[in-house]
């Protein structure tokens, strides 16, 4: 080539010189091993997931779970679709159980305290030590949290054989509710609530959507009754309490009643309904004495609003009244629950939407009152108690410090903890026998009388931790001591219990029965209850005070201590970065504590968001930053439980404050339960400020069409045509100015892909087109979808400092906008939730600006993000109007954090990672992918089977976990699919579409309100 170097030759040469390392032809920079099985388990195919049914152990609701394992390792949990409680859904706490299983701070093995330090010992030695102490002690206490029926039976018989006294300790005990049920209907139970069958619900503070009795059951039921149905009916929800919890934010109307006046208002409502008839039986006189006019002034709401709410209860059919939750549990709580029971009875709800004959938890449930714990504390304080065993409970954290538990516990001669990870109580223990996580354990659960689920281990115990099931330990120790039944293992004990139960049910083939129970996850037996269609109100045998109680302290500011929507009581699940980083559904704050305060009160104190305040009661003082919240009465401030850990692990320690340090440990007179809402509080601003890590952008829509609503009246009257224009027509205005000619389209599936947007789409004719619809009338804002997505897609957690900088990496976030919330008088509540995720815009602004073509539109309608191609320009995130693209500013997925406080994945938390989804490192942009891995897996499976991809084959993680069934996903080109029908619904709209013309594939269905919306901000 005499005429110089040609381009091709140049490139060939450059290529050749770089090929040296490529001799092996593939990306083998290092030597990796392929480890086969020795003898393969029959049920495991490498690369294919194996699923097990079990039951969640995070709270008492006992929702059935399906656990996904890959090669014997648990990687994801979902709800069990066969389970009548969860029906396939799962809450954030349930998803976070993976981080509990792989908690890096779990005990590595049994430990004994010698010379003040905990030292490892073997199981044999540990059990011998325990047996020795049990033999020498003539009596001892066994403090245990809620356990399933079989383990409870074992613990009972063990304690009986060895002289132990059992204290069931549950920080969120429902003592007042049970006592009220006993007083009014003669049954010491928690009744079963059926929200879905009610046409109107009034809650006096029960936060049923984010905690309380059974959040999934109630979210599903609430969504069913409250979302507009086929017949155009919309159930009404009225919230009567001093503070709007997440549940309250979903109400249609808020009666911001004064603290402690719930019983008065309930009686007044009963007064309105019973109107002179003798329906209230022995309570008629009391009901007659409380008219709305009598209580209005005290309650702080108008008589008219009480009357109106009461009339709603009987207008449309069965209704349901729910009592206060833990946060409203004051000195007269039992009376409140009695008043609520009376109101339910008078409204004709008993036996329809509230069922005392087939109650929750079944006969196996029991709980000791706080009163008995108080007695035990007194006993321990004397120093005469030789031994205390603690299992599934953390009273040193969860009890108020004024209870004296810590001091008393310190006086016990020998303290044993079965905790699987360090907590405040285990930190004081002399012997630790680490229990297994429920995902590694056998057991059972009764979520309703007569209904059971078997809990089975979904994997071998995590090898990093030498743990043993508490049932096995007790049986082994009993054997050691020569007491007990001689069973070898808890598994055998469990089967024995079930064999006898099955025998009473008349089951002949127990093995088949057992296997079916394990496979489906649900066992129904003959209900243990007496059926009863006509309950009658019984006269009370206790002195009831319906008036509002006394509050300790001075001033007019009451302190509400409420269970966190993320942690519940937080005593044993705080060491989970997913939960810590999950933005609280009400405040949108992560990682730290905050105190909620009304704007008027804040102004009068000169307090702004983030100002650190000193809260002091007669019992303690705390410093905590303020967060201004219009959804709380001016005379109330509120603090969430779950913060302020000192011994709970690396992610929990040092975050926030523990509000239990501010309240006394007082027993409610009638139920023996712990009183939470009991004291007033003094607030003093300090000079400090704290930057709260909040993911909230704006609390108001500022006239942007983000979450428009439609009133029930307008919707009933409305057209059936799909309307995408919100009435503004800014596109049309822009057209008039010139220079910008948008693509006009109705947004219907037939129009896609749009002309001019087909760059690089080399698809086939039969490609599906994926789209999603989210029904905002159903969405409750619970944020389970956020945790589900994080779990499914290996979304990193970034740490508090990054969240405070706005670098939170959630692929889906729950936005919340205030439209109407007034804490001074009864009125409509209009707080709107918007789950915001990548909209997979057909006309995406992010696609054309990527210099390396790392993001593009796939033939099947997804906006794809190719991680290995991304160079980190971040222009795409810049262009995204929804700000759903998140960038890996650091590598958050290594064993060690890049810098202190940043997200990382220490062993064995990395065992949780989903192998189907690439794990990203720094410099890479990521966002919601519509669970493309699930789509591809479903397509692969369909190709192997019959080639047809059915609608139910592809379910995104967020869709699967939503108890309200708010998310619909599918192939919009299929005319029979649910998504194609829903996207044509008259309530359907696309966020910001009129302004940006992005033509999202995600459509939302407008929330329907009872009131007419008057503001210009839709």
């Amino acid at each position: 080539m005499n005429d110089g170097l040609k381009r091709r030759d140049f490139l060939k040469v450059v290529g050749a010189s770089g090929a040296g390392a490529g001799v092996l032809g593939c990306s083998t920079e290092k030597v990796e091993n392929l480890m086969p099985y020795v003898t393969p388990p029959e049920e495991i195919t490498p690369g294919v997931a194996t699923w097990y049914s079990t039951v969640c152990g995070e709270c008492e609701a006992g929702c059935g779970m399906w656990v996904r394992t890959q090669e014997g390792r648990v990687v994801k949990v979902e709800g069990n679709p066969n389970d009548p409680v969860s029906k396939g859904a799962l809450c954030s706490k349930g998803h976070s159980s993976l981080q509990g299983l792989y908690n890096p701070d779990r005990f590595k093995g049994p430990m004994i305290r010698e010379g003040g330090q905990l030292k490892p010992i073997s199981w044999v030695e540990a059990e011998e030590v325990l047996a020795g102490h049990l033999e020498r002690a003539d009596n001892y206490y066994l403090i245990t949290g809620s356990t399933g029926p079989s383990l409870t039976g074992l613990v009972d018989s063990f304690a009986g054989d060895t002289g132990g006294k059992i204290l069931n300790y549950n920080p969120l005990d429902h003592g007042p509710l049970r006592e009220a049920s006993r007083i009014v209907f003669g049954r010491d139970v928690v009744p079963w609530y059926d929200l879905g069958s009610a046409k109107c619900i009034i809650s006096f503070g029960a936060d049923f959507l984010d905690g309380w009795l059974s959040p999934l059951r109630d979210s599903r039921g609430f969504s069913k009754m409250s979302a507009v149905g086929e017949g155009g009916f919309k159930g009404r929800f009225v919230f009567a309490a001093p503070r709007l919890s997440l549940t309250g934010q979903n109400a249609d109307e808020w009666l911001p009643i004064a603290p402690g006046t719930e019983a008065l208002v309930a009686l007044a409502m009963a007064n309105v309904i019973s109107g002179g008839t003798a329906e209230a039986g022995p309570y008629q006189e009391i009901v007659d004495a409380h008219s709305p006019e009598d209580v209005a002034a005290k309650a702080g709401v108008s008589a008219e609003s009480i009357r109106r709410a009461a009339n709603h209860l009987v207008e449309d059919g069965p209704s349901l009244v729910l009592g206060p939750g833990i946060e409203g549990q004051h000195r007269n709580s039992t009376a409140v629950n009695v008043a609520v029971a009376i109101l339910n009875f008078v409204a004709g709800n008993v036996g329809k939407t509230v069922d005392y004959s087939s109650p929750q938890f079944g006969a196996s449930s029991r709980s000791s009152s706080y009163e008995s714990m108080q007695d035990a504390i007194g006993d321990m304080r004397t120093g005469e108690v030789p031994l205390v065993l603690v299992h599934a409970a953390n009273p040193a954290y969860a009890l108020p410090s004024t209870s004296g538990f810590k001091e008393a516990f310190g006086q016990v001669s020998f303290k044993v903890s079965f905790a699987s990870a360090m907590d405040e109580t285990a930190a004081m223990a002399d012997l630790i026998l680490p229990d297994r996580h429920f995902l590694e354990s056998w057991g059972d659960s009764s979520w309703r009388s007569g209904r059971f689920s078997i809990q089975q281990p979904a994997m071998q115990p995590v090898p990093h931790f030498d743990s043993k099931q508490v049932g096995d330990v007790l049986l082994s120790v009993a054997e050691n001591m020569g007491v007990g039944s001689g069973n070898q293992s808890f598994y055998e004990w469990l089967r024995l219990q079930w064999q006898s139960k099955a025998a009473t049910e008349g089951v002949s083939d127990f093995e088949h029965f057992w296997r079916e129970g394990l496979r489906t996850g649900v066992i129904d037996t003959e209900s243990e209850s007496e059926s009863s269609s006509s309950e009658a109100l019984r006269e009370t045998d206790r002195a009831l005070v319906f008036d509002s109680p006394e509050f300790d302290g001075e001033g007019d500011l009451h302190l509400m201590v409420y269970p966190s929507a993320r942690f519940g009581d937080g005593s044993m699940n705080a060491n989970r970065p997913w939960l810590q980083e999950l933005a609280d559904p009400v405040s949108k704050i992560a990682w730290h504590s905050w105190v909620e305060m009304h704007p008027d009160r804040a102004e009068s104190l000169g307090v702004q968001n983030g100002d650190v305040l000193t809260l002091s009661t007669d019992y303690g003082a705390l410093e905590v930053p303020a967060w201004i919240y219009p959804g709380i009465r001016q005379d109330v401030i509120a603090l969430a439980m779950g913060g302020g850990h000192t011994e709970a692990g690396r992610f929990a320690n040092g975050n926030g404050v523990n509000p239990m340090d501010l309240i006394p440990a007082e027993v409610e007179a009638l139920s023996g339960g712990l009183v939470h809402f009991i004291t007033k509080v003094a607030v003093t601003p300090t000079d400090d400020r704290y930057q709260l890590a909040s993911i909230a952008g704006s609390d108001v829509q500022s006239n942007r069409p983000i979450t428009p609503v439609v009133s029930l009246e307008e919707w009933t009257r409305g057209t059936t045509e799909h309307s995408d224009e919100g009435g503004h027509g800014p596109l049309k205005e822009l057209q008039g100015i010139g220079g910008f000619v948008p693509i006009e389209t109705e947004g219907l599936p037939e129009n896609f892909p749009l002309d001019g947007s087909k760059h690089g789409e080399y698809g086939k004719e039969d490609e599906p087109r994926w789209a999603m619809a989210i029904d905002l009338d159903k969405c409750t804002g619970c944020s389970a979808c956020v945790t589900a997505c994080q779990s499914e897609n290996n979304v990193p957690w970034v740490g508090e400092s990054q969240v405070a900088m706005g670098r939170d990496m959630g692929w889906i976030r729950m936005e919340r906008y205030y439209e109407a919330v007034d804490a001074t008088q009864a009125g409509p509540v209009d707080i709107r939730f918007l789950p915001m995720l990548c909209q997979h815009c057909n006309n995406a602004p992010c696609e054309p600006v990527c210099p390396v073509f790392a993001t593009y539109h796939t033939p099947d309608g997804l906006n794809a993000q190719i991680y290995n191609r991304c160079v980190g320009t971040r222009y795409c995130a810049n262009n995204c109007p929804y700000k759903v693209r998140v960038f890996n500013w650091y590598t958050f997925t290594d064993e060690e954090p890049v810098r202190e406080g940043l997200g990382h994945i220490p062993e064995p938390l990395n065992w949780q990672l989903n192998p189907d989804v690439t794990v990203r490192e720094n410099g890479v942009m990521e966002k919601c992918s519509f669970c493309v891995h699930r789509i591809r897996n479903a397509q692969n499976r369909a190709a192997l089977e019959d080639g047809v991809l059915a609608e139910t084959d592809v379910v995104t993680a967020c869709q699967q976990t939503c108890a309200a069934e708010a998310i619909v996903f599918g192939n919009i080109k299929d005319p029979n699919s649910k998504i194609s029908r829903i996207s044509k619904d008259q309530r359907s709209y696309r966020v910001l579409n009129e302004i940006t013309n992005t033509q999202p594939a995600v459509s939302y269905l407008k929330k329907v309100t009872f009131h007419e919306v008057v503001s210009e901000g839709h």
Partner: protein
Amino acid sequence: MTKRWIGRLTIGFVIILGCLALVFSQENGEDDSVSSSAESSTVLDFTQPIAFPHTIHAGVDQIDCQYCHFSAERSVDAGIPPVSTCMGCHMVIGGSDEVQQAEIQKVRDYWAAKEPIPWVRIYKVADHVHFPHMRHVAANVDCTTCHGEVKEFEVIETVNQPLSMGWCVSCHVEQNVRRDCTVCHY
């Protein structure tokens, strides 16, 4: 003549730069990577724990690929045979010469110790690629298309097909099947 020398100088310059870049770039890799140069035999050792000959198993004995690599038809992974599969035959078959007997004894030792044989991985695509074996098996793509004539290799040391993205895509184009990025990259 000037143009020719300029061309040659340019080529030489580029080659030097390329080699330098190669050497320096390896240091920024992961902690456990070893810098390699054009002579690849220096540090990375791909010797298998047992000298397993595909020539005998797949060649002479004509054992089907999927007898051992059992999950290829239903999973993303092809599967490495569990030790029990090896023992199925080698419980009885001891080998016909000393070399063979020594290697087969190793299999039996692993089985007796209940330990998996730590095979060294040869065929691998990058971590950010999701390659589903079952789709390709179902599409009747012969194993040898990508893995080469394995039954002719005594020891599999190198990958004789590029396994590069371009090579994969060219087959997808030829066969006219889905080839947008998210089919493999997600």
